[in-house]
């Protein structure tokens, strides 16, 4: 039997790596991918809790999260395309005309 805490620690690690990736990466798409990584980590936690609690709800939540992720992906990638079109760069640090 794999203890629940293993899953959860893994989920925490993946979430944390997602966070690090968000701050560390510069390409907008990669940053967006790090968000997907974080969402995946959350999903893992939901499933683990779901199993630990002996409930099904957690899995339903995962379903919803995936849908949300899909919707976000559609919109996010559209925004990225527009940015790339208008600015010709995907480096997030070059998209900083709004400041101070």
């Amino acid at each position, binding site marked *: 039997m794999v203890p629940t805490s293993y899953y959860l620690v893994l989920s925490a690690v993946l979430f944390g790596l997602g966070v690090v990736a968000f*701050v560390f990466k*510069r390409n907008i798409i990669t940053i967006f991918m790090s968000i997907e990584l974080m969402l995946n980590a959350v999903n893992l936690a939901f499933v683990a809790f779901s199993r630990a609690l002996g409930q099904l709800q957690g899995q339903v939540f995962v379903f919803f999260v995936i849908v949300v992720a899909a919707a976000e992906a559609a919109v996010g990638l559209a925004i990225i395309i527009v940015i790339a079109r208008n600015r010709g760069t995907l480096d*997030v*640090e070059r998209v*900083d005309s709004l*400041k*101070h």
Partner: protein
Amino acid sequence: MPVLTYLWILPLLPLLGAAVNGIFGRSWNKSIVSAVSLSSTTLAFIAAVELVREFMALPADQIPWTRTYFPWISAGGFRADFALQVDQLTVVMLLVVTGVGWLIHIYSTGYMHDDPGYYRFFSYLNLFMFFMLLLVLAANYLVMFVGWEGVGLCSYLLIGFFFLKQSATNAGNKAFWVNRIGDFGFILGVLLIFRTFGTLDFATVLPKAAAMPAEPVGQSGVLTTIALLLFVGAAGKSAQLPLYVWLPDAMEGPTPVSALIHAATMVTAGVYMVARSHAIFLNAPFAMQVVAFVGCVTALFAATIGLVQTDIKKVLAYSTVSQLGYMFLACGVGAFSAGVFHLMTHAFFKGLLFLAAGSVIHAMGGEQDMRKMGGLRKKIPWTFWTMLMATLAIAGTPGFSGFFSKDEILLAAQRVNTPLWALGVLTAGLTSFYMFRLLFLTFFGAQRFDEHHVHVHESPRSMLMPLVVLAILAVGGGWMAAPLLWGKANYFAEFLSPIFVANQEAPAAAAESAGGAGLLQALLGAPVIAGLVGFFFAWWFYIRSPETPRKLAASLAALYKLLYGKYFIDELYAAAIVRPLVWISDNILWHVVDEGVIDGTVNGVARVSRESGDRLRQASTGNIRTYAAWILMGVVVFTSLLLWMVG
């Protein structure tokens, strides 16, 4: 008893004159203005005379005769009515004020005839009469203060009458400011009176004060404090050390003003006030000593300055300061009636001196420097003769009014304090010297002016008439107090005796020492001798050998310079008080404290806010990774806090 019943008429008459002239006079021609002004003062004088007549008929229990008109200030247990009262002291003052005032009004019609501010002058003069009458008629300290400040106001207005002249307006300001310093004391004194007695009415305060035990010297009691505070006020108004500085400058005003306000009436208000408050002073021996000392020193001090002044009016001004010192000396030694008596005679002869000086100046076309006069005796005989009478009077020539009043003061002083007496005598000699110096320089010797430029002429009759009347008074005015010398009643003192009833030690002492009549004579002789000596020196210096003064001045250069520079008191005040105060106010208080510290703090807060806002917005770099880092920081801090701290 029309006037006593309608007492308000007396001050109201000049007020009406002032108001009418002030409002309409600008467009009227001068004859109407002078008619209004003269008629109001004439009527006031007539009313005053009538009042005296009625007053004499009053039974003793109706004195003081008090009339309360309306509550003036009334709040929270404090009450001061607009009330007037008449008693013997008031009567004396009334006559002096209205009489001399009337004469000077007449004189002014001639003197001011060519001035464009004619209406203004008479309006102010009448207003002054109003306030002066209020001052002497007041039934409580607050109404007295109204008059007190009012005459100060008029003094300010009249000194600065020639407002195009910088020096005149400076002098006006100085007069008002120095008087305000005095008023500071006066007001505090009044406040302390109220605190002590719960009222400001003379009728209540003075008997209560008289009933209080005398406070020994060296132990500061409430009465002493009151008396000293009041005396500060008196010193301001009556130009005593150290507040005398305004009076010489006040000569910037037209000469009739100098005569009326700065010689005869207003400056004596301090003396009047001290005399009025004698009940307080008598129970405050320390204050009495202070008054006497200050009076005596002022008398001497001003006289020394008067020795060397060359401006005819300045000499008279310092003389006035000196004579006022005599009056305070009298009050300080308890001889209030003598003080008041000298006040009255001084009003006559000093008024006359000023008017005569005005006549001289008038004749000289505005020249005031005695070094540019000389030999005027023949050209303006009326002026000369009247002025001679006045000089004789002030010098203390036996038989003239000044003799009686001054000797009475010195006599009283001798009884209390011999050094004061000695100083008084010395002053008498100096007085005689500078007055005769003035007379000699002006009327005798060679003409030191260019007759082609200056057309010397005698003054018009409107100016001469007052001179003559005052000359008569200056000569004969002293006799009503005279008989003491010959063992008979002193009418004047007797008349005032109901007022100064608490002050019977002086006559009692006189009776005690009646045995030593010879000594008395000798003492009385001393001032006369001093006067003669003064006369002699003046004669020697200015008639006999006119070179002497210059030599003497050269040999005693330092002293001469000190005296000629009036001991540099003005300069001292300027350097020690005025300029530091202005400098501190300007550079420290305004620019450093106000603009630097306080506003600096306020603006500093604004700047700090702006700058921290600027810092804060620097956090907003536009770089999304930065934002993410901030969010992360928030997350870590909050989760850590929640996990480690809370719960």
